[in-house]
């Protein structure tokens, strides 16, 4: 399937979904149309049906049944009672109720709902076949005639969209027509919102659902869909619709399932189990709570509980992949990618036409390195559901990434986009092997097989690789033996250090491998950040004023609940601050029991043990004690920094709190800023020195070092500039511009060693700066660091300089200095091939033909 074809198909579908409301419902809908069975029906039975639906929305099923008892044989009431019976798991009775409803004015609607129910009860093939015939008959005879029939057609075509994606557009046409006839039909509008969400159209889903909730803030179906939409878009809203849903019906199955999923994401499996059980109050056989329970027990290592729950779920999901889809999704969200593949495969086996199961299978196959298989499966998924933006994005990415170059080292396959490959490989190959040697020795664990590291020069592409959608804030991701990360061109130089990201992600590969991917996220991230810092002091970030302030103000979770800081952050910066904090936990733990203690903890996770148990067993610390011990350790270690920062909590108009910085550090920086404005350089220096002394590791823009640099630059004080720049570059591994400036100053000051080190750092952060590489090569030659000179000259050549003859010549000269005359001759010939009259190159070639004199 070509990319262009796919794009056309996707665009047609997406556009049709988005635009359907604009043109639907004219030619296909003959008159007369009259509303039936809706709000306009004022007969006794009609009023009862309305009341039944209202009571059902509140979870008052017994009351609803009682209200309908008198008219249960009346079709309009039977149609209202049937979903109430379904919600209680009384499926046979529901089927009978639909059958009764088939005798009334809502006959078509009842037939469609009955076929849906029969599909859910295991008669999928015949139900779909009958739905197809029914829809074809209706369309063949000139379309639906009543609002109820239009609604029925909308539901029917939505169901048929599973096999024929074009049917989703039909469904939209019917919903549009229905809402044109009866704009107050909030139930239908909520279904429309669901449909948009199912087809990955978040903006239209939100607009539609908000319209429903504006008219009726307690519409349960719209509230449930809004919860799912927020999860889909990663959005938090001030008034959580989940709580509104639970306030309406504390046993609402959808609500409890969604709440249980959130607890699963927080890796609180027992609580998730309990929460899902609360969703079984109305119907003890309801499949979705059982699926979530099965997932929770699986992740908790309770295989018996998992089996029982899954069997209960399967009883209500005959022939369906729904349970497996959920289990695959949950597994992937908990970093169990191989398990996700297995579950998705099981789902595909149960229902080969389930596009979601295929999508999860393909995506997770890519994550575990099965690229060819994953792509083939994704193509199948796309044919079944061309609206799945996740699948489409991933297939597009695979198309564009097909020409990437694979560089093989002893333990890695580095997959790098063609234009970056030569330059990246020069730096990435040795660094990857260095990380491998360091971390495998430290943890006593070697990954099975080679590790695949994919570099993306577009952050959007990386994001698609990681989560299927653009917009991910992370820099890298490790799925186990497969790593994906931003290459330097993905961001502005100085925004990040790709090397620290690679090291971080490879640390995940190690710890995920050691635990069989069974470890809390905070542990995994904490160890990776800790390993970054151990690798290079300027990597991983040290404490920041905001970390001190947030910790001091009690806005970060204690160690025993630090995972929530990652999966349920309560404010914007909580996740990133939790990364930094968690790394210190492992620094403290290693101080106590060395690397052996950490290895034991990781081994324990592999055995399915929990953090509390492991901390108790290995360190003798119960959760509260762990929190307390770390608190003391952290406050003592950074007593100076804590003293420098005073958190200032402000309350906004919306009641939300915000954290600002106060205290001596802030005071000193403000004084420095005022002095800078007035060009009082002595005062700038005095205040900036004070700021540096108060918080030496603070190097972000606006730090004391930056004020010192400004003052020194204004005073043409090279030594002062050098000192300030050294302060920044020794602590901030991303500081590329500062390293380049420092190198220049040190070269002028004839500090060749310092200049060399600064240029090495600058070229490491951004290997794509040809000028820096050339400067590095010159300094390296002068310092007789010939291997570095060769590497830098190769980088210059890989960056395609306009004067390639000169670049080859200089590389040849570097090889001569390194003692590699064969390589030197090869390169100088390349120079002369381009410029035969290039005299210095001619001289070098002639000298290389002369046998080298013995020393």
């Amino acid at each position, binding site marked *: 399937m070509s990319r262009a074809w796919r794009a056309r198909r996707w665009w047609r579908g997406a556009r049709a979904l988005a635009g359907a409301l604009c043109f639907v419902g004219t030619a296909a809908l003959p008159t007369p149309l009259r509303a039936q069975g809706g709000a306009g029906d004022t007969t006794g039975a009609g009023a009862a049906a309305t009341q039944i639906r209202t009571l059902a929305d509140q979870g008052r099923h017994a009351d609803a049944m009682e209200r309908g008892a008198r008219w249960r044989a009346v079709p309009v009431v039977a149609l209202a009672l049937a979903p109430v019976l379904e919600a209680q798991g009384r499926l046979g009775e529901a089927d009978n109720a639909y059958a009764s409803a088939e005798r009334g004015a809502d006959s078509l609607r009842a037939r469609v709902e009955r076929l849906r129910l029969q599909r859910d009860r295991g008669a999928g093939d015949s139900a779909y076949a009958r739905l197809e015939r029914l829809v074809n008959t209706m369309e063949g005879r000139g379309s639906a005639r009543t609002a109820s029939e239009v609604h029925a057609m909308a539901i029917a075509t939505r169901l048929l969209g599973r096999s024929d994606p074009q049917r989703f557009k039909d469904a939209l046409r019917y919903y549009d027509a229905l809402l044109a006839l009866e704009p107050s039909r909030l139930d239908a509008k909520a279904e429309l919102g669901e449909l948009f969400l199912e087809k990955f159209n978040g903006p239209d889903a939100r607009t539609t659902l908000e319209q429903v909730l504006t008219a009726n803030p307690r519409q349960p179906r719209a509230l449930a869909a809004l919860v799912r939409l927020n999860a889909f878009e990663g959005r938090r809203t001030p008034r959580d619709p989940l709580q509104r849903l639970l306030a309406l019906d504390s046993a609402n199955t959808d609500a409890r399932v969604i709440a249980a999923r959130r607890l699963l994401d927080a890796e609180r499996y027992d609580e998730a189990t309990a929460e899902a059980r609360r969703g079984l109050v109305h119907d003890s056989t309801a499949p979705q709570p059982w699926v979530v329970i099965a997932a929770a027990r699986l992740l908790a290592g309770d295989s018996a509980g998992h089996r029982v729950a899954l069997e209960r779920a399967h009883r209500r999901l005959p022939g369906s992949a729904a349970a497996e889809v959920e289990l695959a999704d949950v597994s992937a969200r908990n970093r169990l990618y191989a398990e996700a593949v297995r579950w998705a495969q099981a789902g595909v086996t149960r229902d080969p036409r389930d596009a979601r199961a295929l999508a999860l299978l393909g995506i997770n196959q890519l994550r575990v390195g099965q690229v060819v298989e994953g792509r083939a499966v994704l193509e199948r998924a796309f044919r079944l559901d061309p609206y799945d933006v996740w699948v489409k994005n991933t297939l597009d990415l695979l198309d564009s990434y097909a020409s990437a170059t694979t560089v093989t080292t002893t333990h890695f396959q580095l997959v790098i986009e063609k234009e970056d490959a030569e330059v990246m490989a020069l730096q990435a190959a040795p660094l990857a092997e260095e990380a491998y040697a360091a971390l495998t020795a430290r943890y006593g664990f070697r990954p099975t097989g080679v590790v695949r590291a994919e570099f993306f020069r577009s952050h959007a592409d990386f994001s698609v690789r990681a989560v299927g959608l653009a917009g991910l804030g992370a820099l890298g991701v490790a799925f186990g033996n497969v790593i994906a990360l931003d290459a330097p*061109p993905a961001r502005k130089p100085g925004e990040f250090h790709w090397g620290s990201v690679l090291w971080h992600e490879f640390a995940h590969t190690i710890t995920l491998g050691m635990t069989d991917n069974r470890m809390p996220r905070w542990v995994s991230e904490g160890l990776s950040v800790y390993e970054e810092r151990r690798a290079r002091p300027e990597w991983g970030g040290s404490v920041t004023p905001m970390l001190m302030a947030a910790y001091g103000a009690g806005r970060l979770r204690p160690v025993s609940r630090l995972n929530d800081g990652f999966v349920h952050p309560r404010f914007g910066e909580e996740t990133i601050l939790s990364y930094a904090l968690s790394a210190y936990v492992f620094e403290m733990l290693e101080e106590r029991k060395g690397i052996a203690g950490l290895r034991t903890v990781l081994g324990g996770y592999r055995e399915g043990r929990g953090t509390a148990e492991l901390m108790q067993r290995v360190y003798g610390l119960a959760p509260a004690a762990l929190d307390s011990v770390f608190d003391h350790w952290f406050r003592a270690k950074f007593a100076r920094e804590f003293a420098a920062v005073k958190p200032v909590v402000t309350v906004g108009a919306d009641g939300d709190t915000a954290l600002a910085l106060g205290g001596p550090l802030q005071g000193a920086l403000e004084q420095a800023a005022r002095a800078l404005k007035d060009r009082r350089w002595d005062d700038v220096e005095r205040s900036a020195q004070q700021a540096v002394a108060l918080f030496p590791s603070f190097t972000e823009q606006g730090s004391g070092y930056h004020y010192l640099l400004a003052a020194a630059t204004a005073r043409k004080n090279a030594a002062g500039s050098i000192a300030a720049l050294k302060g920044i570059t020794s602590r901030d591994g991303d500081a590329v511009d500062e390293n380049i400036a420092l190198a220049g100053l040190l070269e002028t000051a004839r500090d060749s060693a310092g200049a060399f080190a600064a240029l090495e750092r600058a070229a490491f952060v951004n290997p794509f700066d040809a000028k820096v590489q050339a400067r590095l090569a010159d300094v390296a030659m002068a310092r007789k660091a010939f291997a570095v000179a060769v590497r830098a000259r190769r980088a210059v050549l890989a*960056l395609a300089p*306009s*004067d390639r003859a000169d670049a080859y010549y200089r590389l040849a000269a570097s090889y001569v200095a390194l003692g590699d005359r064969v390589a030197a001759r090869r390169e100088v010939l390349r120079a*002369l091939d381009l410029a035969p*009259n290039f005299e210095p190159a*001619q001289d070098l070639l002639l000298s290389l033909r002369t046998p080298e004199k013995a020393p």
Partner: protein
Amino acid sequence: MRARRLACALLLSVAMVAPTRAQDGGATHLVVITGVSGEPRIAEQWHGMAMALAAAGTARFGLGAAQVTVLEEDSTRDAGRVNGRSSKATVERVLGALARSLTVADRLVVVLMAHGSMLSGEARVNLPGPDMSPDDFKRVLAPATAPTVAFIHTGSASGDFLAALGGPRRIVITATKSGREQNETLFPGYFVRALTTDVGDTDKDGRVSLLEAFTHAQHEVEQLFTQGNRLPTEHPQLADGADGGRARSFYLAPAGGGAVAANPAAAALLRDRAAVQARIDALRAKRGDMSEAAYQQALEPLIVELAMATRALRALDAGGKP
């Protein structure tokens, strides 16, 4: 290093520039025009580049002062070196006079540093007062049918000048591929630097051809966008009716070596060198049919032969024996 390379270039050019001697025999005229800058930063840049070109014109290209004309937005700025204001009338007067007077051996090089725009679908060069269109330049240069004319528009929206000004004995270089590319261009800085320094001399023959300068600037612009992972907003173009062949042999710097060629020993060495160069060119022509290893194996002895001859010439130049 540079002095030695220049000296050597004098030697080499005897053989290498033979096809262009007829051109070199005539006079070369350089006209540099800067347009309305719009802001001091750009005015400063363009003035700097215009002055660099003018200085290279006399010092590096060996032109007489009368052969270099600089027309700028502000003619009072550097009165000693700026010859007039770059109004449409002045531009037409200067170019018109040259176009009418130049002969077949002469060459005219026009370098424009100016913003461009589109008006009613027609490209414009923004000059003080009325702008000039491609047709304006075409009309004013129309009498120049005999000399080779190089027209170089380094500014935005310059692409439409390519077709309008192309023709026999014409080399047209633009910074953009169409009038729709209207962002400030990066091309002129790199192009002027390539012409006025050694950075553009990629074949190391001691001189920079128009093709070399164009290729250097085009490459640097591309690199800037590629390495910054940005969408390019300019696409430099060259048209000379000969796939770059005319631009390849168009040098502003003069050929030299007449004095050395008068020395019989040097003349023999130069003939040897020319023969080797011809064999290298022949080998290159067959490269596609050879393995890379075989090509390199065949190339090395030829390069060595060439290097030995160069070394002998150098010795002769220094007063020694070949």
